[in-house]
């Protein structure tokens, strides 16, 4: 029955519910946009780093064409529009900077549910690159053996030693090994010996890509130059992955900087809107302020009341915005995946306590500042003049 300050401020939402809702909506939208942008930037950066680490290679050798498309196909699995001659492998290996070169032949077969079964022909050198791989069983050694990713194993209910039919490949295949979950695209791949893959896919003598590990990753530029300078250099696209990822990240970062600036401006505009809404409320409640002063409210009490009102608007709006950002993150993620030329397999939008905290603190700071003007004006009202003000002004 004795109202508290918070109670008093919370009840103000009752007075003009539509205006309160619109004010909160403005903040919520701005905060949701800002939080999503920050979460995306972090998700993308971490995703790229994980992708690079999981790949275990410094350079990707692909047929001529767009390096971004090639990297995306090699990393996530799809059909290749053209091929490398297998003979190029020898030339790549002959470059002194190359510590290891693992050839691959990839093919994706569409399935009834709309997904693709990606099969990759590889050699045991792949194990030297993928140092993070953990296998249940062993790497395929004989003709009709396969190594399956954890995702494939789970979806198809394939167990170690099972004889299975692989979509896109003829005949039956023996599951020689199952990969532990890697968190990357490898979980959705089926690996088989390269020669066998070339034979059953009818692609003898060709490869789709070569993963290259360098002796000294710091000497990437020199190594790339020498690879481009080898005999087959004109027929291959040498993609330095670190540079490629850095370029992608740079593109995203420059876009992000612009978008975050827009998000911040939206937030400032929304909080200015709150300030304006509270100023309007003050002009409508001038007489009420006079009554509060008459019953013993000090100028500090009036300041507190209006300042808390602005602050509460900002806090509630921010909480709604963060909730909205978390709720629609999947939608945002799938939209981003459809828009960006290259996306890591890891989650693209990573909301975390630090982003939530940053948005809360930012909104609190801006809200505190925005609340000063209406609160100060309210506290400066002369009580006897305020009481004489007509109601609703």
């Amino acid at each position, binding site marked *: *029955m*004795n*109202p*508290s*300050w918070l*109670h*008093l401020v919370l*009840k*103000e939402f*009752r*007075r003009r519910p539509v205006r309160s809702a619109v004010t909160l909506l403005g903040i919520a939208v701005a905060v949701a946009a800002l939080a999503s942008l920050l979460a995306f930037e972090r998700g993308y950066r971490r995703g790229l780093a994980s992708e690079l680490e999981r790949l275990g290679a410094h350079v990707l050798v692909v047929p001529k064409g767009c390096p971004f498309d090639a990297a995306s196909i090699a990393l996530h699995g799809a059909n290749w529009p053209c091929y490398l001659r297998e003979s190029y492998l020898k030339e790549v290996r002959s470059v002194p900077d190359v510590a290891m070169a693992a050839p691959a032949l990839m093919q994706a077969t569409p399935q009834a549910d709309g997904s693709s079964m990606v099969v990759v022909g590889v050699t045991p050198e792949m194990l030297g690159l993928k140092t993070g791989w953990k296998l249940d069983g062993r790497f395929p050694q004989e003709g009709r053996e396969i190594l399956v990713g954890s995702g494939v194993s789970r979806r198809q209910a394939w167990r170690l030693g099972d004889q299975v039919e692989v979509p896109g490949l003829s005949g039956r295949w023996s599951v020689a090994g199952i990969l532990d979950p890697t968190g990357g695209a490898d979980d959705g791949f089926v690996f088989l010996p390269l020669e066998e893959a070339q034979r059953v896919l009818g692609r003898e003598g060709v490869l789709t890509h070569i993963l290259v590990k360098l002796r000294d990753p710091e000497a990437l530029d020199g190594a790339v130059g020498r690879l481009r300078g080898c005999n087959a250099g004109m027929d291959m696209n040498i993609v330095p992955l670190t540079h490629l990822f850095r370029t992608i990240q740079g593109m995203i970062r420059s876009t992000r900087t612009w978008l975050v600036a827009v998000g911040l401006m939206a937030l400032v505009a929304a909080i200015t809107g709150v300030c304006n809404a509270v100023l309007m409320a003050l002009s409508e409640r001038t*007489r*009420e302020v*006079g*009554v*509060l*002063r*008459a*019953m*013993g*409210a*000090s*100028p500090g*009490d009036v300041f507190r009341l209006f300042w808390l009102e602005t602050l509460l608007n900002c806090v509630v709006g921010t909480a709604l915005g963060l909730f909205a950002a978390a709720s629609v993150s999947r939608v945002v993620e799938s939209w981003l995946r459809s828009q960006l030329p290259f996306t890591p397999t890891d989650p693209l939008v990573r909301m975390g306590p630090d982003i939530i905290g940053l948005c809360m603190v930012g909104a609190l700071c801006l809200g505190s500042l925005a609340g000063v003007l209406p609160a100060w004006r309210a506290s400066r009202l002369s*009580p*006897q003049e305020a*009481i004489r003000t007509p*109601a609703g002004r």
Partner: protein
Amino acid sequence: MNPMPDPSSSNPVLIAAQGLSKSYRRGRESVMALHGVSFEILRGEFVAITGPSGSGKTTLLNLLGAMDSPSSGSLLIDGEDVGSLTEAGRTLLRRHHVGFVFQHFGLVPTLTVAENIGLPSLFARRPDPARVSELVRVVGLEHRQGHYPSELSGGEMQRTAIARALMNRPSLLLADEPTGNLDSVTGESILEVFRQLNLGGLTLVVVTHNESLAAAAGRRIELKDGQLRVDSASAGSRG
């Protein structure tokens, strides 16, 4: 009905005004709203301030309620010299010694009856739910305490405002046209509340045009053009 204030002071004079004047600036002009008014109000008196519009009634009420400070002269309320008080001092005086009732009720529309009554205790930093319950009962609004002002009749709103004015146990209740927005029957019921509060020992000063309310007061102070025209106490009717 128990008015509940506890006038602990031994001084029977609650208000002492001596040569009280108040002038305002209106543009380049100086307007003398109150000019050399002197009177005393004893504890437990029921005083009506009357006079035509613009006679200085509300200005006097604002001074008595420490909403403003006099331009000249002296005004002592419960021993405190209003003229020498700072803004903070006047706030404290209002908070602990004065209760206000307005013609427009001045209820906070987003708060219930009980919350409105308890509001002054928030500013006094003395929450007292028992006191709220007591006051709800005193003004006969037990069945309405959870209702909002928009759900109340004019009489109920004014009763709520009176209960709110009593929350911090003031020694002085000031009312500015308390029946001005009420029909005559409701006005009578409010007058009865004032009468009961005064019988309980509360000092009441009411600005009114309502003759029956003025007649119910034990004393009438009549102003005209900012000057005291009639003080019935001087005519020997103080009581």
